[in-house]
């Protein structure tokens, strides 16, 4: 019984790690749901919120260039963001 419980916990922890995805790993054109904004910069978090980018809301990558800059669709507005911001926006892996 103890053995089964340990294995269950291990699998659960691995699954948690796999689910943590941010926009730098995301595909173009797919609408994701924001999981959370992860950043040390409080004001950035508030700013993204005001644009409509916060947990539970949809976000889509319209296009991306090789440098890592991308155009995001947040609540009907298009924004060009760099990879630092994309990194801060964590998304749910189930569409």
């Amino acid at each position: 019984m103890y053995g089964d419980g340990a294995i269950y916990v291990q699998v659960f922890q691995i699954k948690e790690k796999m689910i943590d995805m941010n926009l730098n790993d995301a595909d173009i054109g797919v609408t994701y749901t924001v999981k959370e904004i992860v950043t040390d910069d409080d004001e950035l978090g508030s700013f993204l919120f005001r644009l409509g980018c916060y947990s539970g809301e949809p976000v889509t990558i319209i296009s991306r260039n090789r440098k890592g800059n991308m155009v995001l669709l947040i609540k009907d507005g298009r924004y060009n963001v760099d990879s630092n911001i994309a990194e801060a926006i964590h998304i749910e892996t189930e569409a």
Partner: protein
Amino acid sequence: MRIAFAGNPNSGKTTMYNALTGENEKIGNWAGVTIGRKEYPIKTEYAGSGEEAIAVDLPGAYSMSPFTPEESITSGFVRDEKPDSIINIVDATNLNRSLFFTTQLLELGIPVIVALNKSDLAEKQKITIDEKLLSEKLGCPVIKTVSTDNEGLIEVVKEAVASKGKEQKAPYVQADIDLHDKSQVDAEDRKRYAFVNEIAKQVEKRAILAKEETREDKIDKVLGNKVAGIIIFAAVMFVVFYVSQSWLGPIIADWLVAWIEVFQGWVATQMESASPLLQAIIADGIVGGVGAVVGFLPLVMVMYFLIALLEDCGYMARVSAIMDPIFKRVGLSGKSIIPIIISTGCGIPGIMASKTIRDERERRATAMLTTFIPCGAKIPVIALFAGAFFSGSAWVSAAMYFGGILLIFLGALLIKFITGYKYRKSFFIMEMPNYKLPSLKRACFSMLERAKAYIIKAATIILVCNCVVQIMQTFNWQGELVAEGMENTSILASIATPIAVLFIPLGFGVWQLAAAAVTGFIAKENVVGTIAVVYSITNFIDTEELALVGGANEVAMTMGLTTVTALSYLVFNLYTPPCFAAIGAMNSELKSAKWLWGAIGLQFCTGYTVSYLVYQIGTIATQGTVGNGFLPGLIAIIIMVLVVASVARHSRRRFDREYALHGGKTGAAV
């Protein structure tokens, strides 16, 4: 009564403000154009004949709790100065995001009138909004407007005026929470957004989903491409410079200068009976000097027209996004490109535009470096030397602008080196506005406003400077008239000659040119004006005539410069500290004496060094020997480098001390 114009950035507030007041505040199709508040009475044809209504234009804000300096101006004004009513300009193409701010405004108790702006764009994007239902849900009037076409404006103002004294009921009231508790604020904000989402869902219908790729997106893919994007941008800027300085500009200028010469001739005949001294001062000094400067006005006007078109169409935001990765490498932000482009018109609004950059060091660096790109006042200087020494070749001016950008990059790297901030993570986010066909009307307005400012400047500052210079070169210290050929005993010569010594290593250690360079700090156009006065030349534009009149050009011969020294002089004047007015703007933006003097020092040293290099290397290339003053100049530059190195070391040691984990002081202020 006072009516505040509040709303998201780039929603059309300033356009509406300009339409209603007749003022011509700066607009541009990107977020962050309006940086301070402006007020002016609304024209009576809109406000009616009752009490005077004053419109207050505010910078854009996404919400009442401020994130950017612009937002705090808006929320501060609305909260503290209690306008009589608020016209909330809402971008109809982004209703959902805009309504967040709207519901906050509605809670203030001040009557709000919602102007559903850009309705024409919304229609084009097949968005339908039921404004009557929206009005019901918000509890305030909602009027469809198109501020670029004056549509709906009369109704909006009428409602605003009629609402004076009324109490505004809020459709959504924020619960009483501890505003310092971030998690509570977050929770409340989410509730508000949920309320807004619900309204938007009921009121707005989109035939095309926002996430579908549009034609604009396809264009953006090309323009934003890493390689193609930059090439396109360089091509666009080259076209702007070429048309304004080598094609259309000079054509119009030719025509204008002909008239100025006629005027000068007329003045001379009017004064035939006056003393030769007065004749010299007025006909040659004033009319000639000012005329020389005004002759270049068409070049500046065409430039302004083209830049205004660029700013209006929405391309600037894309340029900012393209440049961000490059600028990041040198420690600037993609947003820094906008002040730089504005500075090709005038450095003062360019420096002010750096306010929108959030990171303090990036902002200061941008403000300091943006004047390296030649401004409108420097165009006469470039055109003069390109015409007299390089047969009006377009490549000279292109090289000057390219050189300016190069110096901005190098300067940014230098600042990064000195301040030592290597590991700072900075964020870039820029809204991509809809493309629109640039308004020719707006561009014309902008061009004429600039022409007016230019002429006023010429008729005042430059006029006075030319007078003073003319008098100073006509008299010597004993108050006597200086004889022909004895100009170097004049007051001007005696003051300028010691300064000219500094310029010997740069190839132009002549008092006349030193004087011209110094007057350039009052206004860059003065370089041309002073040269015109001091060498008694007035027609600089007609390069064909100049070429026909005498090989190597009369102008060139009179000034005693070779192509190398001319280039060196040009480079010096372009890349040194800007005019005093621009230095003042830098001061108010840098907000620190240390940074201001650092900036001036950097700019002077850059101008000196580049000029030195051009002269010495050019002389070696053309004559095989080094130029005059090679060694003293080299020593001066080595001293500059040592100063920079020591400042850098000092600053980095301080940086290390502050951040040392053991043995260092903690909590030291920067």
